[in-house]
């Protein structure tokens, strides 16, 4: 465990090397909140609620979901497949770590960086611009959301790692990347609003992990979802994460023997 903590730490450190980049990231997070403040202010325009959300709840949801969206798990599939094609994946094979856990740790390390900025942005906006955020007063809900974020990130990294290692067999995983993008768009309601789907389809989607990766934790933290929904989501997510991890390990062990390392 300690070695993966160190991997996470080193990737956190790489994020904060350049002061200019760090300053711009901080400004962009604050700007995002201010932009949301202005945009949603215009949409609400004196109304108490929109779609069941109060103004504060909407802003809080926006800040949290944009932080969760900033956790770059999709990059894992691209990096893994490119390294396999280019031969540099060997780097992960000669050091005493499991590549999946290595990529998990590096994603958490980078996510820590964005988490800090999101928290700073939320505090800065609350103090400087009097933008009130709304968070759940139930610590159990916050804790549940925290665990859900970890499980969700674990699932998403495993999912993208799996797509990446398909490059051992297929070399180019462009089709799989496109396909998974479409699946996620559909399952999260980005392509078609989930409310428009038939009841049965929605019931099936409830068992898929994607809505519990971003949407549900943000709803729990802002107090917009019940803890019982969170418990169901977390259970589903943990099952998916465990299944995905097993699939990854099995596939990796089967396919890595095909690795030619590039060059003779």
């Amino acid at each position, binding site marked *: 465990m300690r070695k993966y*903590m*160190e*991997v996470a730490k*080193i990737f956190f450190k790489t994020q904060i090397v350049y002061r200019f980049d760090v300053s711009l990231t901080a400004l962009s997070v604050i700007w995002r909140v201010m932009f949301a403040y202005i945009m949603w202010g215009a949409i609400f325009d004196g109304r108490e609620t929109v779609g069941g959300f109060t103004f504060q709840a909407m802003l809080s949801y926006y800040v949290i979901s944009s932080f969760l969206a900033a956790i770059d798990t999709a990059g894992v599939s691209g990096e893994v497949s490119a390294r396999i094609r280019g031969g540099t994946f060997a780097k992960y*094979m000669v*050091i*005493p770590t499991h590549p999946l856990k290595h990529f998990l740790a590096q994603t958490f390390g980078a996510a820590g960086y964005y988490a800090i900025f999101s928290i700073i942005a939320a505090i800065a906006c609350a103090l400087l611009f009097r933008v009130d955020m709304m968070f759940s007063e139930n610590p159990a809900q916050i804790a549940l959301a925290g665990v859900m974020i970890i499980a969700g990130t674990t699932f998403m990294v495993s999912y993208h790692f799996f797509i990446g290692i398909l490059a051992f067999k297929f070399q180019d995983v462009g089709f799989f990347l496109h396909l998974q993008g479409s699946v996620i768009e559909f399952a999260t309601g980005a392509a078609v609003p989930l409310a428009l789907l038939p009841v049965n389809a929605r019931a099936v989607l409830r068992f898929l992990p994607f809505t519990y990766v971003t949407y549900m934790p943000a709803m729990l933290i802002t107090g917009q979802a019940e803890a019982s929904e969170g418990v169901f989501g977390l259970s589903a997510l943990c099952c998916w994460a465990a299944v995905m991890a097993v699939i990854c390990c099995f596939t990796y062990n089967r396919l890595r023997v095909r690795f*030619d390392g590039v060059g*003779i």
Partner: protein
Amino acid sequence: MSLIHTKDLTKTFRIFEKEPGLTGSVKSLFNRKFIDKTAVANFDLCVEQGEFIGLIGPNGSGKTTLVKMLTGIIAPSSGEISVLGFYPNKLETLFKKQYAVVMGQKSQLFFELTPMDTFRLFKELYGIPEKTYKRNVDDFVELFGVSELLNVQVRTLSLGERMKLELIAALLHNPGLLFLDEPTIGLDAATQRNMRGFLREVNSRKSTTIILTSHYMEDVRTLCPRCVVINGGKKIYDGGTDSLFDMYQSRKKITITFGRETDFIPPEGAETLERSPYRAVFILPKDQAGKIAAQITRDYDIADISIEEEEIGKTVEKIYAAKGLNNETEAGA
């Protein structure tokens, strides 16, 4: 038991072959052609603890494939392989903790961070006890003379400085076996010489077994008592490095600067490289060099004379061109 043992080790790659041009690309969609390329064929190798071995061969000869199989990066197609008692491609953690690999063109250091950050990471990855870690960092930093580079960004270092730090990172966990792939590539002559000194020191001080792959024959000649020549995936020589050079460095180059104008003609059988009234450069068989040089010194007014080994590059060309060297495997290794 040998540290490395391979028998009939073979690796065959299946390579996609395509006709040139757009038509070839379209045709290949429907009728894909593959060719089998054997990168390493029936390779036998035994390496004992503490040896320093040079693995040499022209580009595409199979050296890198062999090293990749020994480190577990790729799986052999057939044959036996055992490294430190493990089957490398199982990639067991215990196995990976006992060796290190340094590739001149690939880096384990984090470019945006300092070398110490990477060392810290390696300490945790390899589970190095704090005391050993500190002692090794101090020892290697002193040996390589890099104390001032530890806290600067890796990307700002020169190639030579970076290579020294790559080596330190690889040696922190006291590996019993070290694979070096072109460690002096791109380095200037002085840095190459320094690097050779460090490697010799590591081999003798820690008894680390080192397998060195290099195109710089000087590396192999000065560091490795034993060398293995590989060409076309086959082992064509395994034995003493000096014996190999004795066998192929059969000629010497004589350079003479005359004190006054002469009509000097190089002796019969010599290959003339340069001739003018004041200077002559020629190559002749090693066993005649001393006698001829003495005779010239007697007969002419000599301002300067030098006798050198034949250019190492030429010797290497001859070695690589030979398909069936006297294999000393049975006798030497």
